[in-house]
C-alpha cells in the first residue's frame, strides 16, 4: 500500500523522468548502436590488436628499459588520481632509484654512464620548458633477479613517484606484457565468445560497463529529491507524528526507489536480449546470462548509491549528498586512466570492461568482482539501517541534521 504510493510518487517526479531518459539515452547511443551487428570471425592478415602475455621475463625487460629511460631524463609520467602528472625527482630519490636500477640490471655506476652515452637523445618541449628524453638500447635483467623481488622494487619506485606511475605493481602486467595478437590468437578469442561466454556473457559485460557509468551517479538525484520532498513541502513534522515506524517508512521508500529505478535498467536488459536473439538467431546462446550478470553487477551499485544518497541527505542536506556522490563517482571513473578492460578492484564502484572480448582479463579480477558486489550489497543495507536511525533521532527531536545555513544551521546568526 505505502510501497505503491511511494512508487507512484517517484514515477511522477521530474527527477525520475530525467533519470529514465539518461539511462535509455546511454543504452541506445552506447550499447545498442555498438552491438547492432553480430561479431564475425577474424580475417587473415588483419590487425588484431594486442594481448597480455603475462610473461615475467618480458615484463621485467620492458619495465627496466622504460625505467632507465625515465631515470636518465628524470621525467616520469604519472596518473596519481587518474590525471596526467609529470614528476621530477629530487637528488635523494634519484639515488635510491639508481640503487634499484643497479640491483635489477647488475650494472655499476660506470655501466649506467655508458648506457647514457650510448643512448639517443631527443629534446622535447614540455610546456614552456624543454626536456631531454633518452632512447636507451636494450638492457638485460640480471640473472639473479627474481620476479617477486622485482615487483617489490617496482612497488617502492611507485611509492617514491607518488603512486599512479606505470610501474605500479597492479599495472605491470598490463603495461609491459602486451604482445601483438596473431591470427590464431584472434580466432581463439572469437571462439571463446561462442564456447565459453555463450555469446550472452560478453554482451552482458559490455551492457553493464555502459549502464554502470550512469547508475554510479544518477540515482542520487532521485533519492535526494524524494528524501528532501517532505522538508520542501513542509510536511516533515506531520509525517513524524504518524503511527508508522521509522524502519518501515525508510525501508519502504528505499525499496520503492530501488525498484522504480531498476525498471529502466531491466527494460534495457530486455531490449539488449532481444537484439542479441535477432543478431545471433540459430546460434547456441545462453539468454539468461543477459539478465543474471547485469542484476548481480548493477543492482548492488544502484542500491549503494541510493542508500548513500538517502543517508547523507538525512544527516546533512541534499546538496551535500550530490557533491559527495559526484566526487566519489568522478574519482572512481577517472582514476582508471586508460584501462577500461577488467578494471575491477575490491572497492571499485563503477566496474569497467569495455569490450566484448578479453574474457581472461575479466576473469583475472573475478574474485575482486564477487567480493566487490557483495560488499556493496551489504554496505547498502547498512547505510539504509543508519538512515533509519538518523530519521528516528530527527523524529524524536534529538537531531536536526548538520547544516551550515538555514534553520538550525551552524553558521546561522542568532537574533
Amino acid at each position: 500500500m505505502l510501497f505503491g504510493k511511494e512508487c507512484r510518487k517517484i514515477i511522477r517526479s521530474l527527477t525520475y523522468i530525467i533519470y529514465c531518459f539518461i539511462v535509455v539515452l546511454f543504452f541506445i547511443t552506447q550499447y545498442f548502436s555498438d552491438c547492432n551487428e553480430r561479431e564475425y570471425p577474424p580475417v587473415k592478415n588483419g590487425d588484431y590488436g594486442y594481448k597480455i602475455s603475462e610473461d615475467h621475463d618480458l615484463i621485467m625487460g620492458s619495465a627496466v628499459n622504460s625505467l632507465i629511460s625515465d631515470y636518465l631524463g628524470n621525467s616520469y609520467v604519472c596518473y596519481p588520481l587518474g590525471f596526467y602528472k609529470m614528476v621530477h625527482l629530487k637528488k635523494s630519490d634519484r639515488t635510491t632509484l639508481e640503487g634499484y636500477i643497479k640491483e635489477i640490471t647488475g650494472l655499476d655506476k660506470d655501466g649506467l654512464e655508458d648506457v647514457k652515452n650510448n643512448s639517443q637523445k631527443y629534446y622535447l618541449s614540455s610546456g614552456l620548458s624543454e626536456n631531454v628524453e633518452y632512447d636507451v638500447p636494450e638492457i638485460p635483467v640480471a640473472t639473479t633477479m627474481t620476479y617477486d623481488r622485482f615487483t617489490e622494487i617496482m612497488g617502492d619506485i611507485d611509492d617514491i613517484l607518488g603512486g599512479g606511475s606505470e610501474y605500479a605493481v597492479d599495472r605491470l602486467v598490463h603495461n609491459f606484457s602486451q604482445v601483438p595478437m596473431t591470427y590464431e590468437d584472434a580466432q581463439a578469442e572469437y571462439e571463446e565468445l561462442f564456447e565459453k561466454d555463450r555469446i550472452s556473457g560478453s554482451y552482458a559485460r559490455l551492457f553493464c560497463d555502459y549502464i554502470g557509468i550512469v547508475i554510479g551517479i544518477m540515482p542520487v538525484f532521485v533519492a535526494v529529491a524524494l528524501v528532501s520532498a517532505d522538508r520542501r513541502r513542509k510536511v516533515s513534522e506531520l509525517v513524524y507524528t504518524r503511527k508508522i515506524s521509522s524502519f518501515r517508512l525508510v525501508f519502504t521508500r528505499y525499496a520503492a526507489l530501488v525498484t522504480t529505478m531498476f525498471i529502466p535498467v531491466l527494460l534495457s536488459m530486455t531490449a539488449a536480449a532481444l537484439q542479441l536473439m535477432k543478431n545471433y538467431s540459430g546460434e547456441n546462446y545462453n539468454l539468461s546470462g543477459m539478465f543474471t550478470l547485469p542484476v548481480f553487477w548493477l543492482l548492488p551499485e544502484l542500491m549503494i548509491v541510493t542508500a548513500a544518497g538517502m543517508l547523507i541527505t538525512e544527516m546533512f542536506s541534499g546538496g551535500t549528498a550530490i557533491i559527495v556522490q559526484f566526487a566519489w563517482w568522478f574519482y572512481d571513473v577517472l582514476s582508471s586512466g586508460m584501462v577500461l578492460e577488467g578494471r575491477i578492484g575490491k572497492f571499485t564502484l563503477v566496474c569497467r570492461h569495455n569490450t566484448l572480448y578479453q574474457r581472461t582479463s575479466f576473469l583475472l579480477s573475478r574474485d575482486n568482482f564477487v567480493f566487490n558486489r557483495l560488499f556493496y550489497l551489504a554496505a547498502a543495507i547498512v547505510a539504509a539501517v543508519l538512515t533509519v536511525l538518523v530519521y528516528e533521532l530527527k523524529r524524536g527531536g534529538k537531531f536536526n541534521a548538520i547544516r551550515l545555513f538555514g534553520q538550525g544551521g551552524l553558521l546561522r546568526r542568532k537574533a
Partner: protein
Amino acid sequence: MLSGCLAKVVCSDARHNFLLHYLAAVGLAIITAFMFGLSELDEKLAAQPLEIMLPLMGIILMTPVFMPEQNENIRDVVRSKKTSYLGVCFIRLICSAVILTAITAVFVVYMRFQDSAVTARLFRGSVATSLALGSIGFFASAVSDNTIVGYMTAIMYYLCNFAMKDKLDRFYLFSMMSGSFEEKRWLLGMAAVLVAAGFFCRRAVRKQ
C-alpha cells in the same frame, strides 16, 4: 542610492545564500591544482584541468540562482518588495559569472608560473565552458523550479560529453583538449540563449 541598494543586495546574497557556493568553487579550484600536475604542460594537456574540472564551477555557481526563493514563504516576502525579484536573480547570476571568471584567471596565472603553455584562448575557452554548463543548470532549475533538477540536468550533460563526442558536435565541452576552439563560440551562444530563456520562462510563464 541605486548603487547602494545594489551593493546591499550583493553583500546580503553573498553572506546568506551564496557564501558556501563561492567557497565550494574556490575549493574545487584548489583540489584541481592538487589533482592535476600543473607544471610544464603543453597547450593540449593544459586544457585538461581547464575543461574537465574548472567548468564544474559553472554548475556550482549558476544553478542555484533561484534556490533561496524555492521556499514559498520567502518568495512571498520577496514579491512584496519594491526591488524586482528577477533583477536580484540577474545580479546573482552576474556575480557568479564574475567570480568564476576571476577564479579561472587566477588558476591560469598559477599554471603560467608553473611553466605551462596556457594561452588567452584557453582561458576564454574555459570560461565559455563554465558558462555553458552553468547555464544548462540555470535553465533547468528556472523551468522546473527545482534546483536538484538543475544540478541533475547539468551533470547529465557533462556525463554525455564523456561518451557522445560526435553526437554533440558543436556543443561538445572538451574540444580544447583535441586542439579545437570553434566549439567555444557555440557554447557561449548557447549560454546566452539559455540564460535569456530561463529569465523569459520565469517572467512569462511563472509570472515572477
